[in-house]
């Protein structure tokens, strides 16, 4: 089975008529309680869903979250109304399952803030930046055209302290709104904003070491 191609529709992707009609058949079979359809769902979408879970969790927890997500999808297929694509629906389910796992682990935000501190801008008494550095000459398209930059960006995001990484992933990568992120993480909208801003600043600082002019 060409699962790599088919499953690439998990997350935001282009609509594809063949995939859509496959999806309708799959959903109908799932709603009829066909175990073979469930196996198809697992094999076609599971790999990409696992990749999403891995952004939030280590390998063992990511696999547990994937299993929880797929079992929950199987059990709640009757609530799938066909308004979104199956891939989008599954994406949301695996993100939620990952967040539930994270919450159980109960990381300390104080430690995360401490770890992030060195990556935030420092200011002089007069409010100017102490360490301005230089500008970035390349455009985002040029930067993304370089495989090593894409890898650096991914690694840098995944290496952020967990509570910052999670907010950045939800807002900037998984495409949740501020309100949705706040609800998912049990935070206020303004707390989400503060964390997202700090996470972006920290990421900017890490990347600046590699991407700033003359770096």
């Amino acid at each position, binding site marked *: 089975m060409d699962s790599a191609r088919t499953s690439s529709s998990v997350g935001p992707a282009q609509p594809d008529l063949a995939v859509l009609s496959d999806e309708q058949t799959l959903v109908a079979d799932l709603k009829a309680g066909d175990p073979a359809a469930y196996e198809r769902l*697992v094999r076609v979408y*599971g790999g990409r869903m696992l*990749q999403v879970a891995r952004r939030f969790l280590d390998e063992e927890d990511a696999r547990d979250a994937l299993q929880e997500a797929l079992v929950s999808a199987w059990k709640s297929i009757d609530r799938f109304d066909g308004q979104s694509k199956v891939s989008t629906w599954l994406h949301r389910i695996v993100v939620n399952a990952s967040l539930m796992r994270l919450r159980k682990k109960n990381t300390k935000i104080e430690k995360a803030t401490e770890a992030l501190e060195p990556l935030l801008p420092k200011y002089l008494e007069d409010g100017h930046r102490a360490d301005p550095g230089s500008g970035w000459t390349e455009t985002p398209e040029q930067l993304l055209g370089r495989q090593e930059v894409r890898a650096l960006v991914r690694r840098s995001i995944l290496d952020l302290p967990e509570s910052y990484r999670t907010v950045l992933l939800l807002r900037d990568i998984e495409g949740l709104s501020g309100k949705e992120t706040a609800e998912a993480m049990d935070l206020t909208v303004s707390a989400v904003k503060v964390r997202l801003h700090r996470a972006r600043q920290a*990421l900017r600082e890490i990347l600046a070491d590699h991407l700033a002019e003359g770096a």
Partner: protein
Amino acid sequence: MMTCEQFIDHLLDFDEGDLPSETDRLCREHSALCKQCADYLDSYQKTVAVGKAAFKSDSHGSEPAADTVDNQRPSAMESYELPEELVQSILTAAGAVR
């Protein structure tokens, strides 16, 4: 004039056009007059743009997490096919074994 620190604190809202008009005007004024902050804004926006795109498949359709540079996370190098034992475990957990 707003300080650099105040400007950078407002950056997320400024970038998203979410500031009250007077604060927005002060931010515009600051970035027009302060090269360091204009550079910071530019690199901040680039950071957001590359961050948003970095996990998407590239134009060749290759899988981003499966790249070999990313060797700090060996798990990320596995393919998109699930390990068979994981598939079986997921099938069993759902009570959907044939």
